[in-house]
């Protein structure tokens, strides 16, 4: 009677565990690394030890856990990953492979707004050519500014001349006169 009861409770426990696996979505699907030996801990295995200072230690089996609690150093035990790393076993191959990957070449591609030819042309331009181009551009701008200034001056002179003429005649043209320079200014800006 006692034995059958035990079996039922175990089954119950398993079922409950299964349900919680599905319901709680807490099932691990990745492997973790043992803090002591560096071995992979597959889901369902291992012991997790949480120290009072909130530091979590994962052990792949009770061997690692025992050694940890007995204050043995993994770097002194030949079979641990730490020892291998410290004594540089099997690292030479990895180092060579890593170095090969890190060489980068300057690669030119065409971008939206500037095709490959344009980029190459700009890159191959000599500094003197670039300076000459810059100077030409500046000169153009200066000429443009000068032109607009001259226009403005000319218009102002005209308006002043008009004012002097029409001041004797009456107030009506005065209404027109202040409008004149404003319009001229707007035109010049554009």
């Amino acid at each position, binding site marked *: 009677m006692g034995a059958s009861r035990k079996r039922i409770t175990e089954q119950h426990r398993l079922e409950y565990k299964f349900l919680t696996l599905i319901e709680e979505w807490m099932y691990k699907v990745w492997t973790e690394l043992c803090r002591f030996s560096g071995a992979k801990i597959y889901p369902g295995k291992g012991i997790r030890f949480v120290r*009072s200072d*909130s530091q979590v230690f994962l052990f792949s089996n009770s061997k690692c856990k025992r050694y940890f609690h007995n*204050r043995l150093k993994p770097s002194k035990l030949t079979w641990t990953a730490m020892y291998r790393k410290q004594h540089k076993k099997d690292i030479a191959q990895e180092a060579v492979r890593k170095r090969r990957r890190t060489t980068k070449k300057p690669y030119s591609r065409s971008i939206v707004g500037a095709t490959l030819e344009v980029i190459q042309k700009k890159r191959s331009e000599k500094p003197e050519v670039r300076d000459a181009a810059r100077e030409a551009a500046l000169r153009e701008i200066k000429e443009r500014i000068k032109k607009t200034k001259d226009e403005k001056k000319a218009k102002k002179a005209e308006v002043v001349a008009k004012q002097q003429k029409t001041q004797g005649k009456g107030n009506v043209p005065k209404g027109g006169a202040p409008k004149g320079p404003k319009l001229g200014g707007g035109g010049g800006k554009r």
Partner: protein
Amino acid sequence: MYHKMGRSLMDGLQNFSNLPSTSREMACGSFLYQQQRTFIQMRTVLKVVDNSGAKKVMCIQPLKGKKGARLGDTIIASVKEAMPNGKVKKGKVVYGVVVRAAMQRGRCDGSEVKFDDNAVALVDKQGQPIGTRVFGPVPHELRQKKHVKILTLAGHIA
């Protein structure tokens, strides 16, 4: 802390630990073997990790558990040591939720968790924590036990 010899048991009570029997054999011989961690039972002294005023608490009765309380269970306890001005005084009978247990507890995914010490967060009859802060790490298991308030107060969830 890790070099204690022997087992931490009460007289008369058997060892109901989850460890396999082979480790027990080894324990008899070696000096550097750890404690055999068991349930939290009557007369277990636990640390209090909230700011309710109590410092040490002794378990009087584990609620729900023939052998004893585990991680995430509630216990009735008596305050043995308390801060001078706190919500809880010495000698008071309180309820507590075990937030850290030295005995390992199986997780849903099959792994086991164990903490460094036995600690408790004081709680009232309805399950609401008495303190306003919880110190130290706190396990996930509390969510399943519907002690969500303690989880929210906790600084670190293991």
